[in-house]
Every structure is written in structure tokens, then in C-alpha cells.
């Protein structure tokens, strides 16, 4: 199924020419990567981060600064990639080390506050970031063509999906899911729960940084909004509405939210109420958390699963915790 859709998306730009659609799809691919990185934390390990924008923003600013300060060449692109890798890995490691041994509230709180700190940093460190207004930059030659860039983002999304699929199916990933189900039992089985959680935190952070790079390059512009709460909320909405712990859900969620965003922005030109479109998503999100904690994908799976073999409903609800 996944490959079918990927193949379809692969040939799409060659058969149907629409610049707007292509740009929108590129955004969806990028946010799919971002949402999947979030899903690894929330869905597969049961960690709630409220500062995922921080990693996204680090990626976006790294590439922006390298492209602006130096020549937009492949070498500098790679350097930005390495810088993002090192920074996101280091920060997610430290945050994980500090809070993952405590209750889940702490990780959420610390990431929330830290990303607030990065937002302030981006605003105040004007010599490097040009403050609130941000800056435009040029990108290396190979990335300029929109179709090429579209294909690149599609490839990254597919790669990230395969990587995470592998990762979550690996012994390490199984331990992560065991932690989500029952942390104490996993601990008592002799697993160093903290190490595994930190590993998940680092992989997720790095991947989110990569998404940030792609995002900034697609806009050729970066400003403080990449650190804003909205970015984190996007990831949350996409993962929750799509369905946690499935990876597919993250991608479907990304598609839905981006499409809806695009569509509602159009509508807002006619009806002012749609300017506050986030309210609808907020309400849907609350309802999903309350009544369909497994999201679209999880709920569909449950339904089809139940048809084949009746399963106590209670168990499915428990999994969501």
C-alpha cells in the first residue's frame, strides 16, 4: 500500500502539472518526516514532547545560517547537515538525561520551556538570526528545481519511514513499545529503560532537525516562527489525528492537516471565522484524544481487527496510555 502510493506520487509531477499542488505535497512530505519523528516519541515510547519545534528550528536555522554566511554550495549544505545532527543529538540527549527518569510531565515541561528559550534566542541574537523578521537565503544548485526538490523530499520521507519501521521492529524498538505498555515491568525484566528512552529521544530529535532543514530549504527563508509552539502543535495534531504508534498515521495526519490548512486559508478570504481554523483542529484534537485515542489509523485497524476476531475493547483503550 505504502509503495503504491509512493509510486503514484513519484510519477505524479510528470503527468499532472500543478505548481501549487507540488509545493503543497512537498510540504506534506516534510511534515510527514517531522510527524513521524514525533510519533517515535509519543506513539512508540509514550514520551510527550511539547518542544519538538526546537529541533525543527535548529535544523532550519543551521541551513539558513550556513547558506547565508557562506556560499550556497553542497559542501556547506553538508556542513549544515552535520551541525544539525550534532546539535539536535546533543540537546535531545541532555534533555532526555535530565527528565526521562522522572514522570512524563517533566519531559513535556522541559522541552516546552527549552523551545521557548530557543525562540527567544532566535529573536535576540540578531547578528546571527536577523531577529523576528528572519532572512532569505540561496540554496545549492541541485535543489533549486521544484520537481527535483519534490522528489528529494519524497525520497527522504520514504527513507525516514523505512528507517523508523526498521527501528521500531528491531529489538530496540520492541523494548521501546514494552516501555510504553508497562515501564515498571520492562525495568524489572532487566532493561535499562532510561537508555532506551534516551535513544528514542535522540533519534527523534535528529530526524526532526532534518525535517527542519528540508522545510527551510523549500521556503529559502527562515524566521523565528520555526521555533514557535505552532510547529510543535502541528506535529501533535498530525500524529494524534492520524493515529499514534503507526507511522502511517503520522503521514496521513500530515497530509490531512496541510491540505486542510491550505483549504481553510483559502476559505478565510471569504469568511473571517476560518482565520481561526486552528480552533476546529483543537476541538477535533480534544475529541480524538478523548474518544479515539488511537487516531484514524488505529481506529480503522481496530474495526477491521474486531471483525475478524472479537477483542475486548478495554485492551485497545489501555494501549493508548
Amino acid at each position, binding site marked *: 500500500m505504502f509503495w503504491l502510493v509512493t509510486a503514484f506520487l513519484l510519477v505524479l509531477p510528470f503527468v499532472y502539472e500543478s505548481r501549487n499542488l507540488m509545493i503543497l505535497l512537498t510540504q506534506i512530505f516534510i511534515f510527514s518526516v517531522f510527524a513521524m519523528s514525533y510519533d517515535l516519541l*509519543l506513539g512508540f515510547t509514550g514520551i510527550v514532547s*511539547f518542544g519538538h519545534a526546537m529541533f525543527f528550528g535548529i535544523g532550519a536555522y543551521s541551513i539558513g545560517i550556513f547558506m547565508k554566511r557562506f556560499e550556497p554550495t553542497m559542501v556547506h549544505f553538508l556542513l549544515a547537515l552535520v551541525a544539525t545532527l550534532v546539535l539536535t543529538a546533543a540537546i535531545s540527549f541532555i534533555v532526555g538525561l535530565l527528565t526521562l527518569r522522572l514522570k512524563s510531565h*517533566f519531559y513535556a515541561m522541559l522541552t516546552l520551556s527549552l523551545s521557548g528559550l530557543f525562540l527567544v534566542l532566535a529573536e535576540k541574537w540578531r547578528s546571527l538570526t536577523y531577529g523576528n523578521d528572519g532572512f532569505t537565503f540561496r540554496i545549492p544548485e541541485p535543489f533549486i528545481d521544484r520537481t527535483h526538490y519534490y522528489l528529494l523530499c519524497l525520497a527522504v520521507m520514504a527513507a525516514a519511514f523505512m528507517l523508523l519501521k526498521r527501528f521500531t521492529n528491531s529489538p530496540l524498538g520492541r523494548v521501546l513499545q514494552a516501555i510504553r505498555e508497562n515501564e515498571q515491568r520492562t525495568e524489572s525484566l532487566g532493561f535499562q529503560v532510561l537508555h532506551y528512552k534516551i535513544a528514542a529521544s535522540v533519534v527523534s530529535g535528529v530526524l526532526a532537525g532534518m525535517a527542519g532543514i528540508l522545510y527551510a530549504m523549500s521556503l529559502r527563508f527562515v524566521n523565528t516562527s520555526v521555533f514557535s509552539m505552532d510547529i510543535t*502543535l502541528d506535529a501533535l495534531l498530525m500524529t494524534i489525528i492520524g493515529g499514534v504508534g503507526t507511522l502511517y498515521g503520522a503521514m496521513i495526519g500530515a497530509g490531512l492537516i496541510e491540505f486542510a490548512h491550505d483549504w481553510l486559508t483559502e476559505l478565510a478570504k471569504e469568511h473571517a471565522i476560518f482565520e481561526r481554523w486552528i480552533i476546529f483542529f*483543537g476541538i477535533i484534537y480534544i475529541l480524538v484524544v478523548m474518544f479515539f485515542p488511537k487516531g484514524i489509523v488505529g481506529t480503522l485497524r481496530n474495526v477491521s481487527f474486531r471483525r475478524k476476531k472479537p477483542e475486548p475493547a478495554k485492551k485497545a483503550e489501555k494501549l493508548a496510555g
Partner: protein
Amino acid sequence: MDLFFNLTLNGLATGMLIFLLAAGLTLIFGLMDVLNFAHGGLFAWGAYSGLWVYSQTGSFLIGIAGAILTGFLLGIITEKWIIKPVYGNHVQQILITLGLMLVLSEMLKVVWGPNQLTANPPDYLVGAWEVGDVIIIKYRVFIIFVGLLIFGGVQYLLKKTKIGLVVRAGVMNKEMVQALGINIQKVFMFVFMIGSGMAALGGVLLGPYSGVIHAGMGMEFAILAFIVVVIGGMGNFKGSILAAILVGLSGSFMAYYVPDLSLAVNMLLMAVVLLVRPQGLFGAKG
């Protein structure tokens, strides 16, 4: 001397506002194990609704009452419809309260528009007293006064009344409280209401202090409140006022001497506390 005094006063006033927000957070957390990420939204709603009532009636005090009432109402609604259905599931709670935060802040923009509003203190709180060469801004003193009053009031409630006793018992052992014939749900609702009312009060007091209010201020202050809750110890009411004053003062002095680092210092403080004393600087309870 003048500068030092003013920075201190400023820090204390800010600390009191953060305290009003953090106190509810920490009480609710201590009793219900719920970290309410929508708490900042209640703060912002207090600011807007209070300012609105103030502008309609012309009385600042009625405005404050209006804000507190709004806080009570929103608190009851939140507890009943948002928190209760997912009670006991931490991840779901965290997620759902954040969703509520989102809706609350956006709703503010729907009702009062997306632009920031200006707020001024009432005439009798405008200006300053001059004592020797020290200038004391009245409104700041007013905030400190209200903050201490609320602290004293809640402290009295906790220590001297039956409901306060039940709340303290509930923090230690929820099950046993119920086994003694007490409806803990009602106690939850009560604490949530008080906490929300305090947050809303903090919000309405902030308006004339900073001069403007905007929908994003809920989140800004919520972050400070989280830092305070961690430093003071989650569930520790007395710790929350001490930590709030600490954060307020450090913010005020840092903002004067090295403005860019003020938030960073508080963050650093929180990181250190998380690392060495996750139960908080004050008291032993975790």
C-alpha cells in the same frame, strides 16, 4: 539604592503574578496528579474578561471579580469535561490539556480580536509614592499586597479548615480519603476551581502592570510557572511562592543587567533542580 529597591519591587511583583499561576498548577498537580497545560489559557482569559468587565463597569475591583468568576467557571468546565474523562491516564491528560490551551487562546482572538489590548490601572493606583529619593510605584505594591493576601488566604484554607485538611490528606493518599467517606471528586473540583480562579486573578492583575495584553501571554507566563513549579517542588504550595519570588527577582535583575539571558538563567536553574533535586528546592515531598 533607588535602582536596587525598584528592581526588587519589580521582581516581587512579577513573582507574585507567577505565584498566582503556579500555585494553582502545583495544588492541582499535588492532589490530582494532573499537570494542566491549559492553565496559562485560564490566566489569559482572566486578563481579557477582567479587562472587559473593567471597561464596561469602570470599576477595576468589579473587573477583578469578573476575572475570578471567569476563572471559576472555566475551571469547573475544564475539570468536568476535559480532565475527568481521561482521569488517571497521564499521557492523555497532558495531550488533552494542551489541546484545550490551544482552543482557549484561539477563542480569545475570536471574542476580542487578534490584536493586543491596552490596559491601565485605575486612577487611585496610578503613579508612585516618593519616600526620600526612592520612588515606589503604587500598582506594584498593590500586586504584591494582593499576592500575599491570596497566599495567606489559601494557607489559612489549607491549614485551618476541614476542606483544606481533606485536600492535604488527598495529596498524601487519595484512596484512604475516599475510604473515610469523602467524595474526592468534589474536592478535585474545588481545588481546580480555586486554582483556576487564582490564575485568572493573576491574568487580570498583569494587564495594567505590563500595559498591554495579548493572547500569547498565557503561554509565556505558563512557561515561567512551570519553571516555578519544578523549582518549588511539584505539589508544594509554600515552595511555589518562594520559587516564584526567586524567579521573579532573578528575572527582574537579569533583565536589567543582562536582558538577553534572563530566561536562560531561570531555565538553567530549572535544569539544575531537575538534575539534583527533582522533588524541588523546598521541602521533601516529591
